[in-house]
């Protein structure tokens, strides 16, 4: 079992910055996120889009903001469970929670900070009859174990970066690979589009556009997909069909935790510390709601800061705490690293 002071659910900007504010108070953090990489929406939805309202950053790409946050929190040695979803939360005593993920990972913490953004990202499933019958039997919405496609026949559908990236990655591993997209144009990195074009030209992969998967067939396992291109149907035998149509956020199991929910968001006490109706469980960033709430990254940072001060008081009820300024005290990393402003030197001019 993982033990930590604060369990942060959601590794988006707010969750990541919580590690920093907690670190200043010498509180350790563990983060859980359903996505395989940190960054939340900034990594998943718009990594290449600029953000203009981060104080002191006239313009910063969402992906770069995540990289900077990861660098900022590194001294506080956060630990991560990525690609797993929280399922269950048990309050075992006033200041002890055990949280369990869908893969059975258990985290014991004094505090839970839900920084889940819009919720847990789940794949958008195409509207194909019986598709759910083949989930895990040839249909994969997320690639978790790329090795399983070695020497297999694979069909990928989608027109964004993940469809392109996985097509490139699996092109020399799969026995055959077919990429299907509804239009001729792909919305992905220019470089990836070029690579896929080259692979197609060399006959390494098959690209079928404008087309879509009309239906799927098989017995216990997927056997073939029916591809519809401009009114013409074609059966393609395949071992795997991987639809990559992006992800959509769902509040998911958090809605069964007994938290007060309003309009798909968790109600918190904003006049104090963003605590929910369950003492010791906080909700910060886009996932919470209170009168006057604004879903902005900068507001998430503020909420994380106040929340950590409150968490400190819960964890150390008898300790007095005074706000320290990093310019004065520097950053003392849990990894032994130390950052501080240089001391003034006094030297006479002769």
């Amino acid at each position: 079992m993982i033990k930590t002071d604060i369990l942060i659910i959601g590794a988006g900007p707010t969750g990541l910055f919580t590690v920093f504010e907690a670190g200043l108070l010498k509180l350790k953090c563990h983060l859980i996120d359903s996505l395989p990489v940190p960054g939340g929406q900034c990594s998943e939805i718009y990594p290449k889009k600029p953000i203009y309202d981060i104080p002191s950053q006239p313009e910063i790409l969402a992906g770069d903001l995540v990289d900077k946050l990861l660098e900022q929190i590194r001294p506080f040695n956060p630990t991560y469970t990525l690609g797993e979803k929280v399922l269950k939360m048990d309050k075992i005593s006033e200041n002890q929670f055990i949280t369990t993920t869908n893969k059975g990972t258990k985290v014991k913490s004094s505090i839970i900070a839900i920084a889940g953004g819009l919720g847990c990202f789940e794949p958008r499933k195409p509207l194909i009859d019986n598709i759910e019958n083949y989930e895990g039997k040839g249909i994969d919405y997320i690639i978790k174990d790329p090795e399983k496609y070695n020497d297999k026949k694979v069909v990928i559908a989608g027109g964004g970066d993940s469809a392109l990236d996985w097509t490139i990655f699996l092109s020399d591993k799969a026995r055959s690979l077919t990429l299907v997209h509804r239009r001729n144009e792909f919305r992905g990195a220019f470089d990836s589009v070029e690579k896929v074009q080259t692979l197609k030209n060399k006959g390494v992969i098959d690209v079928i556009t404008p087309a879509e998967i009309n239906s799927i067939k098989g017995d216990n396992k997927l056997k073939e997909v029916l591809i519809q291109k401009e009114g013409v149907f074609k059966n393609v035998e395949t071992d795997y069909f991987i639809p990559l149509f992006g992800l959509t956020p769902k509040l998911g199991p958090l809605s069964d935790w007994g938290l007060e929910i309003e309009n798909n968001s968790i109600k918190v006490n904003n006049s104090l510390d963003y605590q929910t109706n369950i003492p010791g469980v906080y909700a910060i960033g886009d996932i919470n709601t209170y009168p006057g709430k604004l879903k902005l990254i900068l507001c998430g940072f503020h909420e994380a800061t106040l929340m950590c001060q409150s968490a400190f008081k819960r964890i150390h009820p008898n300790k007095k705490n005074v706000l320290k300024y990093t310019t004065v005290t520097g950053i003392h990393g849990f990894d032994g690293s130390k950052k501080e402003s240089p001391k003034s030197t006094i030297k006479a001019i002769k």
Partner: protein
Amino acid sequence: MNKDIKLNIIDRKGKTHIIQAPLDMNLNLMEVCKMNNIGVEGTCGGMAMCSSCQCYIISDHKLPDKNEDEIAMLSESFYVKKNSRLGCQLFITSELEGLEIKIAPN
């Protein structure tokens, strides 16, 4: 000068909402739906990257052409029809007076 236009919006449950939308706030249709709690998520905030604001245009208004981002997103969305648009890419202008739309399933 009138600063509002009237919109007729059918939500996902089939309920019709008659909405007054201001012209002077640089709003798009997704934002108008959110302001009026019509049950549109606007997950990506208006970047044409999620299609949670997809709607069907019922009236025969002449609308601005789709941009590349909107075409690309609709090509990857579900429940797309010929009259599908992304609300976040349609800005509230006087030309939209009386527009009738239906929010697409999500």
